[in-house]
């Protein structure tokens, strides 16, 4: 134990003395949390809509006012022809084009079907499908309005009344979704990069040899090396949780203690992965690239901003090896839904197994001789 104490003392001295690293460890993650929460959003609002109104009737104006009254749309421009509207889509100065054809009102009053054209810039496919859904929603609403207008003769009684309720986030606030995920991202980056880089740094400087000739045990060295970053990352998570609460008013429905307890196991996995990266690299550059490589894949597949269930089966199976996916899921469950230990126990056990496996591989791979 005393030996571990001396390693810890040394590590903390080095961390707190480093004028570059300390701000990186403490300040940058907070800035990231702040900026990421505002930038990493698939929320659709203020969709720019251009309108070609060839009908210029009460009906067309009523429809347009439905759009301009919606918080999802801002009218970017009124165009005189379809071609002009398409030009706007081309230059990227509008996202969606609504064309109301001539005689729309006349057709409707004759109880004929009329059509509007809706063109969406679909390069960003997911945004496009949302924009399309919103626009269709408004037009369908408008249809109901026309029907009522046509009096009881035209009205079709609603046979099914659909009531939608959004639990856990009734205002559909995107930050509520992202912040718990971003917190996971931050502790993952800190844990993985710093622990890996730290050991490689000793390799690069040659100080690791000096340690290797001492009778220090492998486990003592590992604990001494990993514990500081384990503590730092947990500390960071706590600050992040406070930040989420105070700045973004993200709820904490479940137990903070449970969350921190699971986080402490999760960090073992992350630190183990960083350690593993350091055992296969000789320079900090290599260690960083290797960690970066895996972190990017982990994050992309983690469900941080895309639904995991939509991935094909093989990708979901692969995702069983993705620790970030487990913890993001757990974090959202505890923070937003108030899930208790029983509900997350399956995921937690998986993390425990993962931690044990990764740490034993990493310790095995780390050789004092070599």
């Amino acid at each position, binding site marked *: 134990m*005393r*030996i571990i*104490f*001396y*390693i810890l*003392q*040394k590590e903390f*001295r*080095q961390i707190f*003395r*480093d004028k570059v690293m300390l701000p990186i460890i403490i300040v940058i993650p907070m800035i990231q949390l702040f900026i990421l929460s505002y930038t990493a959003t698939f929320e659709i609002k203020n969709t720019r809509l251009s309108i070609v109104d060839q009908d210029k009737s009460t009906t067309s104006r009523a429809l347009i006012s439905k759009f301009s009254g919606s918080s999802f749309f801002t009218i970017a421009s009124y165009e005189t022809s379809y071609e002009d509207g398409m030009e706007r889509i081309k230059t990227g100065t509008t996202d969606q084009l609504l064309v109301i054809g001539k005689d729309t009102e006349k057709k409707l009053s004759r109880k004929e079907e009329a059509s509007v054209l809706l063109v969406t810039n679909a390069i960003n496919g997911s945004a496009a499908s949302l924009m399309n859904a919103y626009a269709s929603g408004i037009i369908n609403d408008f249809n109901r309005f026309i029907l009522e207008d046509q009096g009881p003769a035209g009205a079709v009684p609603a046979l099914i009344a659909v009531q939608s309720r959004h639990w856990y986030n009734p205002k559909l606030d995107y930050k509520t979704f992202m912040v718990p995920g971003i917190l996971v991202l931050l502790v993952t980056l800190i844990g993985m990069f710093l622990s890996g880089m730290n050991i490689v740094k000793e390799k690069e*400087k*040659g*100080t690791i*040899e*000096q*340690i*290797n*000739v*001492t*009778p*220090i045990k492998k486990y*003592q060295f590992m604990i001494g090396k990993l514990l500081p970053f384990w503590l730092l990352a947990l500390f960071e998570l706590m600050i992040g949780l406070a930040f989420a609460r105070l700045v973004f008013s993200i709820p904490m429905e479940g137990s903070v203690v449970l969350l921190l307890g699971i986080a402490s196991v999760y960090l073992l996995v992350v630190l183990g992965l960083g350690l593993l990266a350091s055992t296969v690299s000789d320079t900090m550059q290599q260690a960083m690239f290797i960690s970066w490589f895996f972190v990017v894949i982990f994050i992309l597949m983690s469900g941080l901003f895309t639904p995991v269930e939509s991935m094909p089966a093989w990708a979901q199976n692969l995702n069983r090896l993705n620790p970030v996916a487990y913890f993001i899921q757990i974090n959202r469950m505890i923070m937003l839904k108030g899930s208790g230990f029983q509900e997350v126990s399956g995921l937690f056990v998986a993390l425990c197994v993962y931690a044990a496996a990764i740490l034993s591989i990493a310790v095995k791979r780390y050789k*004092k*001789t*070599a």
Partner: protein
Amino acid sequence: MESTANNRVIHVRELVKKFGDFVANDHLNFDVYAGEIFGFLGANGAGKTTAMKILCGLQRPSSGTIEVAGFDVYKQSDQIKKNIGYMSQRFSLYEDLTVKENFQFYGGIYGLSATEIKDRTRQMLESLQMTTSADMILRDIPLGWKQKLAFSVAMVHRPKIVFLDEPTGGVDPITRRQFWEMIYEAASKGVTVFVTTHYMDEAEYCNRISIMVDGRIEALDSPAALKAKYNAATMDEVFIRLARAGVRSMNG
């Protein structure tokens, strides 16, 4: 100095180390005795550092019998590590810690008590006349002093044998001189010193030296005996005569 099996501290028989096809150490045989200053010479790439790392337990030998401080390198490396000190070619103290903190760290991981660490740190700083620099960050200290500190750190747990890998590389002649005085002082207290070097004048300070060429030990004796054997005036001449025969030296 007596050379008997009783005071033998390093015992090497048929040491072979291969990296793939490359034979770094080719059947080495030598013994080192307590209190001796043993010089390990050779051109770059001759295999000195490899052999030294094997003795320190930093690398595994391919084959051979090796005992250090009476312990077997294959099975008792932990025992060995308690009894040896090592100072590597690359400067290996922490540049971002103070002098005192470096002592504290290494003393700590060798299992010294807090009072022992304190006392020894004070003693060493006094003998190095560096008491005023105890709280300086190592980065700000001149190289020569750092080397002397590294030697002191390698001795902090009072090892029986200390391994020095080119300890005086890049330091000025005066510091080199002082460094060797430290080595003599250690040897006079019964510490065995195993040192590799390039400097032939330093070789003269050793009790015995071995000269490695292409992974083999070509000569092993006291400096005087070697000069006599090769009919040379200086160790320089002895070395050049032997090393010139080698193929893989000289190129760096």
